[in-house]
């Protein structure tokens, strides 16, 4: 039930602890964290551009859709923007439910939508220069499995 878009890093453990604090109705808590990868040590800069006026609204829409589809006791989306270093956290989602299947499915649904429907663009700079990360065709395809179930 919360969406945050911010430049600063977040504390994954503290966020997950807060989600279940004082509650006894959650049986399953799933989290996903996206991190800046730099396999070969050649990443000079990583920058996330976004569309501020649209971002929070898009994320809230995605979250509301997940909550309409699965019985969630709690959910959280945090997405950063700006310049990030290799290994840093880019974003997280968390979903809490009575049973594991709902928590897992809702988290995957949120991620699939975030990948292709949240207004963020990644730019990587290596010694060869800067380039905008291409959208992956698999990411667009991943959305289809949720369409079928509507």
């Amino acid at each position, binding site marked *: 039930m919360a969406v945050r878009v911010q430049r600063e890093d977040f504390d994954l453990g503290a966020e997950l602890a807060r989600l279940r604090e004082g509650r006894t109705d959650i049986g399953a808590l799933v989290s996903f964290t996206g991190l800046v990868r730099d396999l070969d040590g050649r990443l000079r800069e990583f920058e996330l551009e976004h569309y501020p006026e649209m971002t929070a609204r898009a994320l809230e829409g995605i979250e509301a859709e997940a909550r309409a589809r699965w019985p969630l006791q709690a959910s959280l989306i945090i997405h950063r923007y700006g310049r990030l270093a290799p290994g840093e956290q*880019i974003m997280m989602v968390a979903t809490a439910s009575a049973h594991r299947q709902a928590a897992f499915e809702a988290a995957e649904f949120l991620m699939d939508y975030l*990948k292709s429907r949240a*207004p*963020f663009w990644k730019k990587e700079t290596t010694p060869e220069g800067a380039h*905008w990360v291409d959208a992956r065709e698999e990411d*667009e395809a991943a959305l289809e499995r949720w369409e079928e179930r509507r």
Partner: protein
Amino acid sequence: MTGTTTRALDLRYFAWLRERIGEGGETVETGAPTVRALVEELREREERYALAFSDLRAVRVAVDQELADLDAPIGNAREVAFFPPMTGG
């Protein structure tokens, strides 16, 4: 735009569309009824727009901050944004 009423519309550009056009946004006077017609107007305006919009399959659109189709009517919208496919998460 002869014979049609024009009005002020805010445009926003992101990622490589912003870089190719050379600015993050601008306000234009347009009478374009749809996003596609608006793109045609921009293309004819200057080379950098023609370049940015050369492959429309690589362009996504939001009308008043909601994802929309290229053929969406602009209607009374205040803002139209252009950007490449999103890469969130």
